[in-house]
C-alpha cells in the first residue's frame, strides 16, 4: 500500500469538510478524487500532503504513519491548481528549487533538471520566467518541479482546471503517458467526471465530505452505489412517480412498484441507454416526439417529449439513428427496459429492475 487513510475526518470550525473517510492507494496507481466543489476532495489531498492536519483519523504513506510529520518530511510532490510557480525564478531555478533545498550537488542538480526538461519537452525554456510561458508549459514546469526531488507520491490539485478545453485533452493523455513512464503513485483532484473516468485507474467519489464510492471507472459507471454517484457519473433520467395499485405512474409512464402504499411518492432513475426508440409508432407502448438531437461523436443523445410533457433523454449510435430514420420533430414510440427505484440521495442504490414484457404490453394497450 502506498497511501492509506483510516477514518480521516477534518473539521473547519463547525463545518465537517471530510467525514470519516477511509481508502487506500496501491503502489504506482493513478487515482482521481472526484466530486462537486465543496465535496472535500481537495482537503483530502492537502491532508495527504501535510498542508492540512486531520481532526481525527490516521494517514499512512508507504506504511509510515505521517500524521505527525511536517510537509517537508513527507517526501511528496504537490502541484497546485494555479501552479504556484515562483514568479521571480526562471524555469531552471523553479525546477531546481527542491534539489537546492535538499542540498544536492550542483552537477547533480544540473543533470536532474536537464533530464526533466527533456522528459517534459521544455528544452530551451530554462531561462524563461513563468510569465513568458503558455498555460500548458507552466503546468509542465509545475509537475517537473514537484517531481524533481523524486517524491514517493505525486499529488495534483485540479491539474487541468486552469487550461482551456483544447489543450486539456492533450494534457490528460500526456499525464497518463507520464504516469506509465514514471510509475509514481499519483493522486489528482478533479470536478470533471469525464476527466476522472478517462485518466484514473480508480476513482474516489466525494460529496459533502462523504466518500460515496471507490472503484475503477467502469465499475463506478455501471454499478453506482447510490443515487448521488449514479447522477454524478454519466446522465440519468429521474422521474417522480405516484404509486397506485402497485404501479408507479408519472404522466403516461408506468413502472411496477410493488410493496408501496397507494398515494406514496417514489422516484425512479434510468440511463439514456435504457430507453428504446422506434419510428414504428406501434412497436413500443409510449408515443413521443423527438425534440432535439445532440451529436457527441460516435454517439448521439436525443431529447424526447411525451404527450404529457415529460422529457426523457436517450442515447444511441449514429448507425441506429440512421437505421431508424430519425430526425428532429419525428414522432416515435418508446419503451423503458431497465430502471432503478431511488430512495434518499446518499442511501445505497437498489438493484436495477427490468420492466416485464407483459406489464408494458398490458399498459401499452390501455393508453
Amino acid at each position: 500500500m502506498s497511501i492509506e487513510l483510516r477514518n480521516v475526518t477534518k473539521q473547519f470550525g463547525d463545518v465537517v469538510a471530510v467525514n470519516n473517510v477511509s481508502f487506500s492507494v496501491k503502489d504506482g496507481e493513478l487515482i482521481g478524487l472526484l466530486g462537486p466543489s465543496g465535496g472535500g476532495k481537495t482537503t483530502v489531498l492537502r491532508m495527504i500532503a501535510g498542508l492540512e492536519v486531520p481532526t481525527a483519523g490516521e494517514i499512512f504513506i508507504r506504511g509510515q504513519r505521517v500524521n505527525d510529520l511536517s510537509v517537508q518530511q513527507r517526501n511528496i510532490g504537490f502541484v497546485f491548481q494555479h501552479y504556484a510557480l515562483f514568479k521571480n525564478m526562471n524555469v531552471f531555478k523553479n525546477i531546481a528549487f527542491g534539489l537546492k533545498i535538499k542540498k544536492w550537488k550542483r552537477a547533480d542538480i544540473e543533470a536532474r533538471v536537464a533530464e526533466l526538461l527533456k522528459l517534459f519537452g521544455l528544452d530551451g525554456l530554462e531561462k524563461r520566467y513563468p510569465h513568458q510561458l503558455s498555460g500548458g508549459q507552466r503546468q509542465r514546469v509545475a509537475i517537473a518541479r514537484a517531481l524533481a526531488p523524486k517524491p514517493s507520491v505525486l499529488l495534483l490539485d485540479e491539474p487541468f482546471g486552469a487550461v482551456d478545453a483544447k489543450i486539456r485533452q492533450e494534457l490528460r493523455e500526456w499525464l497518463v503517458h507520464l504516469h506509465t513512464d514514471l510509475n509514481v503513485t499519483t493522486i489528482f483532484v478533479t470536478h470533471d467526471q469525464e476527466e476522472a473516468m478517462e485518466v484514473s485507474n480508480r476513482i474516489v467519489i466525494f460529496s459533502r465530505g462523504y466518500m460515496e464510492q471507490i472503484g475503477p471507472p467502469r465499475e463506478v459507471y455501471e454499478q453506482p452505489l447510490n443515487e448521488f454517484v449514479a447522477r454524478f457519473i454519466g446522465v440519468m433520467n429521474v422521474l417522480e412517480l405516484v404509486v397506485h395499485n402497485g404501479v408507479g405512474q408519472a404522466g403516461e409512464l408506468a413502472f411496477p412498484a410493488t410493496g408501496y402504499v397507494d398515494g406514496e411518492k417514489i422516484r425512479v432513475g434510468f440511463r439514456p441507454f435504457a430507453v428504446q426508440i422506434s419510428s414504428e409508432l406501434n412497436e413500443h407502448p409510449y408515443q413521443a416526439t423527438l425534440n432535439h438531437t445532440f451529436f457527441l461523436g460516435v454517439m448521439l443523445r436525443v431529447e424526447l417529449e411525451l404527450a404529457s410533457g415529460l422529457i426523457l433523454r436517450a442515447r444511441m449510435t449514429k448507425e441506429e439513428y440512421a437505421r431508424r430514420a430519425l430526425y428532429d420533430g419525428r414522432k416515435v414510440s418508446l419503451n423503458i427496459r431497465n430502471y432503478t427505484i431511488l430512495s434518499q440521495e446518499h442511501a445505497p442504490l437498489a438493484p436495477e429492475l427490468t420492466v416485464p414484457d407483459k406489464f408494458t404490453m398490458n399498459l401499452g394497450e390501455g393508453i
Partner: protein
Amino acid sequence: MAGGVPTRIDRQALRKSQRGTEESTFFKWLLITISLLFCAVFLLLPLINVFAQALLKGWQYCWDSLVHPDSWAAIKLTLLVAGISVPLNVVFGLVASWAITKFEFRGKSLLVTLIDLPFSVSPVVAGLLFVILFGLQGFFGEWLVEHDLKIIFAVPGIVLATVFITFPFVARELIPVMQATGTEQEQAALTLGANGWQTFWYVTLPSVKWGLIYGVILCNARAMGEFGAVSVVSGHITGQTDTMPLRVEKLYNEYNGPAAFAVASLLALLAVLTLVLKTILEWKAQREDKRAQRVNEPKSAA
C-alpha cells in the same frame, strides 16, 4: 416633409450632446487648471524659494553653513536616527504584515488599527507620550536615573520617537502586496522541503521587494523630516540633540535665514529624491504586476 421633423430633433439632440461634451471638457480643464495652479502656488513655488533663499548669499556661504559644526552635527544625528529607525521598522513591518496576511488570529483587526495609530495621533502627543514614560517625572524616570540612563533629551529618545512616528510606513506598504501574492508560492516551497526561513528568504522576500523598497523610502523620508515628536523629546541641545528639522528652526529663529534655508534645502532635496524614486518604483512595480497578471491568466497556446 416627413423627414424634416426627425432631422430637426436629431439636430437638437446633436447640439445637446455636443453641449454636454463641451461642458464636461470645460469642467475637466477647470479641474486640471485648479489642481495645477494649487500645486504650483503651494508646493512648487515654496520649493523653488527654499533653494533660492539657500543660495541668496552664494554657493560658498551655503556650503559653509552646511559644514558649520552645529549643522554638521545635526546632519550626522539625522542620518544616525534614520539609520537606526528605518532598519527597525523594516523588521517590524515584515513581521507585522506577515502575521496579518498569513495567519488568522483574534485581535487581527485591532493590530491593523494599532499600526495606523501613529498616522492618526499628533506627533507632539507622541513625543509627550515618551516624556511621560521616560522623563524625570515619568513612570520609569527614577529607575533610569538610578541606572544612569538618559533617554529624554538624548539620542535614544529621538530614536524612540522617530521609530514610533514611522512604524506604519513599511507595514502599510507590505500588507496589500502580501495579500495579493497569497500563500500558494510559500506552500509550494514547503512541499519542496523548504523550512520557514528558506521560504521567506527565497520566495516571500523577492515577491514583496518593490513594496518593501517603497516603504523604506517613505519611512526614511519621514524619519529624516520628523519635527513634532522629535522636538518634544530632544531638548534642543545645539550640536548634540538637534536633528536637521530642529536645526532649521533654530537657525531661522536666530535670523540666519540663508543658513536655515541651506539646511532646509538638503531636506527638500531629500523630498524631491524620494518622489523621483517613488515614481520609478511605482512604474517598475506596475510593470511587474502586469506580468504577474498575465501569469495568472491561462494562455491557449501550449
